[in-house]
Every structure is written in C-alpha cells, then in structure tokens.
C-alpha cells in the first residue's frame, strides 16, 4: 500500500507539480478548443492564448505567495 501511495504521489508531483491550476486550466482549454472546432469554427488560437494566460496566472500566484511570505 505504501509503495502504491508513493508511486501515485510521484506521478502527481511529476505531472501536476507546484501549481494544480495549470493542469486544470489546460484540460479546460482543450475542452473549449474541441467544442469550438466541433462547431466548425477556427479554434487554433485558443490553445496558444490559454497557455500564455495560464503561465501568467501561475506566475502571478507565485509572486503573491512570495510577497506574502516576505511580509510574515
């Protein structure tokens, strides 16, 4: 059981890492892309925009966390 938990933890750390928001945001962006493409519209712009927005959002969260820690 301990080995299974350690294995699952390894994969969680490996894939999700420090910010779970990135993983959740990417799944949402792919779903939105598939939805728009399925309706017959151009959807190529969704993923690059979402990736930059997610990166910016994640960096902003890290920055806020760092300044909170510095204040304490």
């Amino acid at each position, binding site marked *: 059981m301990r080995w299974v938990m350690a294995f699952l933890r390894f994969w969680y750390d490996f894939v999700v890492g420090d910010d779970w928001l990135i993983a959740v945001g990417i799944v949402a962006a792919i779903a939105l892309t598939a939805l728009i493409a399925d309706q017959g519209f151009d959807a190529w712009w969704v993923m*690059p925009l979402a*990736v930059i927005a997610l990166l910016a959002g994640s960096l902003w969260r890290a920055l806020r966390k760092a300044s909170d820690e510095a204040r304490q």
Partner: protein
Amino acid sequence: MMWGEMTRSAFLFLTAFLASGVEMVEALTIVLAVGVTRGWRSTLLGAGAAALLLAGLIAGLGPLISEVPIGSLRLVVGALLLVFGLQWLRKAILRASGYKPLHDEAAAFEQERAEAGRAASGGSVAVDWYSFTVAFKGVFLEGLEVAFIVITFGASKSNGVTIAAAAAGAAFVIVIAVGATVRAPLSRVPENTLKFVVGLLLASFGTFWSGEGAGVSWPGSDAALLGILALLAIASLAAVRLLRHERDLARLAPAQKGAGA
C-alpha cells in the same frame, strides 16, 4: 511537407536530448555523491538494478502505446507535455528572475555526500544497502522521467520512439563520459537555461499536439510549431524582465521608506 517532417524530427531529437540530459545530470549527481563517500560497488549495483528495471518497464509499456489510436494519443500526450513543460517553464522563469534559488548541482552533491557520510555504515557485509538504495532510487526516479519523455514523444510520430531513444542514448553517453572523466558534480552545466529551453520546447509541442488532438487545423501546418515556439519564448522572456523589475522595486521600497523616515 518534407521540410515539416524534418523540422518535427529535429525538434523531437533536440527536446528529448536536452530533457533527458537534465534528468541524467541529476541522477549522476546522486550516484557520484554516494559513490565517492561510501564506495562504488554497492552504488553501481543500485544504479545498475534501477537501469535494468527501467529497461524492463520500457520494453513492456512501449509496444502497448502503439495500440492506441494516434488522434487520442496526440491529445493525451500533448496535454501531458503541456502541463509538464509549463511547470518547467514556470520554475525556470521564477529562477531566472530571482524569485526561486537557482538549482545548484554542486550544493546538491555536497548535501547528498554529507547525508551519505552521516548514515551508519553497513559494516563488513557484502552490500552496503544505504548506497544501493540511494543510487537505485535516484537512477530509477530520474530514469522514469526520461522513459516518460522517450515513450510519449516517440509515440506521437512515426519512427518517433527511435528518434527520442537515440537522443536519450546520446545524452546518456555524453553525461556518463563527462561524469566518469571529472568524477565531480556537473556544476558547470547551466541547468536553469537548459530547463528554460526544454520547458519552451515541451510547451510548444504540447500546444501543437493537444490542439491537433482536439480537432484544430493549424495555419501553415507543421510550420505553426515554430510560430508557437516564438510566441512562448517572447512571452517568457517578457515575464522574466517584468518579474526582475518587480523584484527590484520590492527591494528598493523598504530602503526608500527608511530614508524618508
């Protein structure tokens, strides 16, 4: 079309080579620290056992992946690479802008060496289980990351496994050759710069493949990969500059407050 194929193959080789190289340097740091401190026999036995287990895992899982339809595979692999790549890129941007300490292989080597020195000796037994376990764990965990990169990258393109495995093999030969020659941590490898570049490449591939898997037709076909890479590189470099500026302002603020009081 030929140019597009060549671009994809070159990107694939470069990304697999750099990503595997970074993981291998980390594994080598652990093996060298334990080997230098506690002896080589058990350390190399541990590293060898981990390499054998990894080879078995890759041989078992590799062929299974080719059974999955290519469209679904691109979607899943693209999403995984994108998540993985963005995590690397985020960490590299935070390190480059000073919000996170730089990863230092020399410091990691010293820490591993101190821990290995403190651990109780196995005495006169044939195998020093401390050295075996630490080397096994280091090689297995870092190797699993290399295996993930090779299998997922390779599965998304015909002949991809061969290209990614060749790149990982080339990285292995270079890292081991340098490690055996210097017998010291590879502290001169600019690890953060490598992680920055690999993060950009992984995120670009991930965006391209997950988009294709979700039903997107990229303008310019394969050439769109270069466009995505350029866009992400510009955004990341701008983020580094902006964060450095924020950090400088935050440092100056208390000094100005003190001068004004």
